[in-house]
């Protein structure tokens, strides 16, 4: 059983192992810098479906099928799914998983959902409530534009701070036994809102939450940034990351050298016209499942702090003049550990 330390952190005494991952992305992500890492890539955004929403559900479904295959399990072996997406009422996820007959917890943390799902899944396994848990999230550029912004064919200009929602899904299977990498600790974020109201600058809205969670993780665990080989945030993108570095510095933590961001890694802004970088639930999920997991397995990094970030706004809240509450959840992943029994 795990134990709670400090204000917001849980140490998992029986660290669950991530035994398999799978990622599916659309054509833009496939032609980006991380293209070769993704397991399945589609030729277009619709993937044979007739709406963006149905396409997103297909991404969810196919990614889950693939990850279960990779773990050499059957869907009956999975005891819980923790999953979510950005569409209203989590329809992307719900319709994607409805044929699997696996008990399901729907999770919403905006773009932080992957870390939130993994946190809950790991705690469930560590607590002895399940042997195999699946955590997954998805997002779809066209579906997100339609819901949060404008129709696809509308001729508009995006500001330079805008981000590009990733079309993709990532899934992981968290198991009681396995050869790692392991989820060793979790710092659950709280809502942080420093008054940013521009929905086209979400990196700035989320950076304070990322700083808050990362700093709290160090305080709770007594660790310093040196403990990690890599800290990777979800989708702060170029300008959010600069703000995070500044905010952490004010708290006395210098994390710039080991810091990167899924939204920065996934696209090449110069050739792909993505402005500040990627975003969306599928951004951190596909980058974790496709790139991070594989590189951790290879031994490039031994200790990674995965901090997915979310901007908890709705189109209505922005129009009513509300500021954007941010959140960030941190999951520590370590390649090898000596199991404490």
């Amino acid at each position, binding site marked *: 059983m795990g134990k709670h330390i400090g204000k917001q952190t849980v140490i998992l005494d029986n660290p669950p192992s991530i035994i398999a991952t799978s990622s599916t992305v659309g054509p833009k992500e496939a032609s980006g810098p991380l293209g070769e890492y993704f397991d399945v890539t589609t030729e277009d955004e619709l993937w044979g479906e007739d709406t963006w929403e149905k396409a997103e559900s297909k991404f969810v479904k196919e990614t889950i099928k693939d990850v279960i295959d990779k773990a050499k399990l059957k869907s009956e072996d999975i005891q819980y799914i923790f999953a979510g997406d950005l569409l209203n009422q989590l329809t992307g996820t719900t319709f994607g998983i409805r044929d699997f007959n696996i008990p399901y917890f729907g999770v919403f943390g905006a773009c932080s959902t992957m870390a939130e799902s993994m946190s809950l899944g790991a705690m469930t396994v560590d607590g002895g409530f399940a042997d195999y848990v699946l955590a997954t999230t998805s997002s779809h550029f066209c579906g997100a534009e339609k819901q949060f912004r404008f129709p696809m064919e509308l001729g508009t200009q995006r500001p330079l701070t805008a981000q590009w929602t990733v079309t993709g899904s990532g899934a992981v299977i968290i198991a009681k036994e396995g050869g790692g990498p392991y989820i060793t600790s979790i710092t659950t974020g709280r809502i942080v809102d420093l008054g940013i109201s521009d929905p086209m600058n979400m990196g700035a809205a989320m950076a*304070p939450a990322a700083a808050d969670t990362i700093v709290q993780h160090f305080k709770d665990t007594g660790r310093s940034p040196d403990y990690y080989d890599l800290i990777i945030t979800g989708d702060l993108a170029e300008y959010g990351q600069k703000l995070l570095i500044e905010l952490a510095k004010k708290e006395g933590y210098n994390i710039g050298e080991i810091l990167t961001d899924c939204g920065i890694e996934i696209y090449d802004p110069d050739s792909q016209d993505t402005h500040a970088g990627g975003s969306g639930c599928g951004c951190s999920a596909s980058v974790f499942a496709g790139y991070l997991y594989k590189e951790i397995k290879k031994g490039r990094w031994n200790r990674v702090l995965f901090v997915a970030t979310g901007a908890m706004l709705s189109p209505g809240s922005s129009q009513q003049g509300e500021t954007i509450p941010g959140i960030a959840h941190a999951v520590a992943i370590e390649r090898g550990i000596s199991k404490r029994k």
Partner: protein
Amino acid sequence: MNKIDQMKNKYPSMVDEISPKNTVVINSLRAFWVGGLICTLGQFINNIFLRYGFTTIEAAGITSVSLIFLGSALTALNVYEVIGKYAGGGSAIPITGFANSMVSAAVEHKAEGYVFGLGAKIFTIAGPVIVYGIIASTALGIIYYFIH
């Protein structure tokens, strides 16, 4: 003042400093030449119909319809979004942009059906233009009535 409130005061200026600014001059130049080109095209169409014997009022109507057709067709062909990305207000403000705002919403929401999808959502972006356009023209009409 607690720490969060202190940060709330300082943070917006931090964000302003780091966030890049749009290039107003370049954007304005692009909007100017593309918007100007669309209007010149409108004048060209108008002149042609005047030459073929239509009255001024008829020619104006036909010109609007032609530009609306052009904007709609370019939207359907996924070309107008490319123009819009380059020209911004230059292609949004002329009547072709109005057509684009309606057709793009119609295409996007066709998936939710012809009544509550296409039919209802077609005005999502164009609606305010119509509402405030009518209010403004009515107000100006009243003012015009009294000063003449």
